[in-house]
């Protein structure tokens, strides 16, 4: 079944009198256990699409359905709630908090929820991505690949249904990128999550079950 479903999504930006459609009537779905690569030239709307899927941005037209529920018109706090519960994020620039250790960074999405304690799960996830000996390291004591693995563990901490990754290997060399993609594929199978990843390089598309191409905001 599909975790997320976009129907006829249009995203327009106005810049003065000029109007550009970053997304133009895009339909998109991902299922659990499936990895979809989103490719396309620069400026084609890949990040915009990922932001709409991730409930970080709302479409100008069309509907967004998460786990069978229409979330298009939810307010800021409702969207935040759904992001926390159902969506994991991995960014090209890692975006870890420098004041926190690896374990603490992984716990961030659940930190303000006093009903759960995800410390054990955070440590377990870090071990699973091969960082069992780096639990209390701060981000500035970790390599790029290690940081991205911490970010993957963070994306998984709340047992999401989908992980969104915007160029997750963009800042990494070929070999490190491969290990990150191995990690993502393994986790996709173990946790049965959907993954949508934006990429420039062909390396990622080799790992993907399916590839979606965008050109000027339109699906090919």
């Amino acid at each position, binding site marked *: 079944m599909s975790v997320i479903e976009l129907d006829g999504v249009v995203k327009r930006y106005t810049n003065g009198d000029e109007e550009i459609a970053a997304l133009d009537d895009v339909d998109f779905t991902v299922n659990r256990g499936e990895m979809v690569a989103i490719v396309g030239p620069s400026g084609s709307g890949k990040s915009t699409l990922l932001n709409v899927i991730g409930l970080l941005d709302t479409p100008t037209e069309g509907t967004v359905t998460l786990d069978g529920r229409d979330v298009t018109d939810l307010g800021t706090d409702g969207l935040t709630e759904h992001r926390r519960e159902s969506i994991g994020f991995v960014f090209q620039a890692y975006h870890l908090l420098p004041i926190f250790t690896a*374990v603490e960074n992984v716990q961030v999405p659940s930190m303000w929820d006093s009903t759960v304690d995800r410390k054990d799960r955070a440590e377990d996830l870090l071990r699973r991505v091969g960082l069992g000996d780096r639990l209390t390291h701060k981000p500035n004591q970790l390599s790029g690949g290690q940081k991205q693995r911490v970010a993957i563990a963070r994306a998984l901490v709340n047992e999401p249904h989908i992980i969104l990754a915007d160029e997750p290997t963009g800042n990494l060399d070929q070999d490190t990128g491969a290990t990150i993609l191995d990690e993502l594929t393994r986790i996709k199978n173990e946790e049965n999550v959907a993954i949508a990843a934006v990429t420039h390089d062909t390396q990622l598309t080799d790992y993907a079950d399916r590839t979606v191409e965008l050109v000027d905001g339109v699906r090919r």
Partner: protein
Amino acid sequence: MDASRRLPSLVMAWRNLWRNRLRTILAALGIVIGVIAIAGLGITGSALRYGTAQQFSDITNQATVMPGEDAEQRYLTESQVQSIRGVASNATVIPVKQGRVTISSHTGESYASVDQVTKPRELYSAHKGTIPQPFRTGVLINNETAAYLNVTIGDLIIVGDQSYKVRAIISDGGIGYRDSRVVVSPPALSKQGYSSVMIIAEDGDAAQYLANATKDHFNTEGEVVRTSSYGGLNQRVGSLFSTLNLVLLGIGSISLVVAGVSILNVMLMSTIERRSEIGVLRAVGVRRKDVLRMILAEATLLGVIGGAVGAVLSAGIGALLYDTLYSDPLLVFRWASARYLIVGFCFGAFASVLSGIYPAWKAANKRPVEAIRS
């Protein structure tokens, strides 16, 4: 990590402040200075007031009763004095007879105003020797008179037509004391009645009350007696100092406003710097109110730390001031002074929290998609 499970906003706030130690210290310094301005000036005001109140307390508890406009005689009669004793039964009542007589020794002679009382100790202060109480026989003179007559304690002088032994040299006036040249024991003055009656009460309020009660007693038809007391002075001095303290606090507040603006600036800068960090928090599901709390916690910590340091330093400065003025540093912990430490602390913390509201609100409402765009 246990602490951050319970108070994640506070833990994050603390670490973020620690991360930029220098900036944190400088921002807190603004609050420290503001608190010192408020508390220091408040304490200074209350220290001055304390000293003044000490000085005035000796006269403010006195009231003087004199014959009024409509009195039958130009003196107070023995029976009037008895009535005053009845009205002021809890206070010390001292009738004073005053007259001009010749005083002389073997070297000089003078025509002088002389007080005749039975209880001089409450009304005069001894410069040399001790004032006898009760005053059965003898004379007290001031320095000038002693010099003029060329006499000292133990010598005899003639007052009117009788000789008296000099018992003490009295000070010239001084706060709370009558300014007289010669004080003699009865029965030196032959004239009838008393020129005035002194009432010495517990405190200023009691003296004022007794003065009013005495007037009420005598002045049923016309002004038989008039009174003078310093009860109002106490209040006037009090309100003068209240005004002074308000002015000082106002001056102090200005520096806290400046400190608040600098905190506002620092918080805005630091939230703009951390724009993407905060955006990531929001993206991964941290609620707006939690981000708001985190930034407010930073401002609160700055205010509480700055306020506490400021209060401690102010207490030190106040102790130094009291030590210099009254040789007792612990007087700073009198409530009248200590409360300014609390006022300063609260104002400091409040100014800081207030300054944190806008940056916190702004950070919390920033759209995460804008904040994380690389």
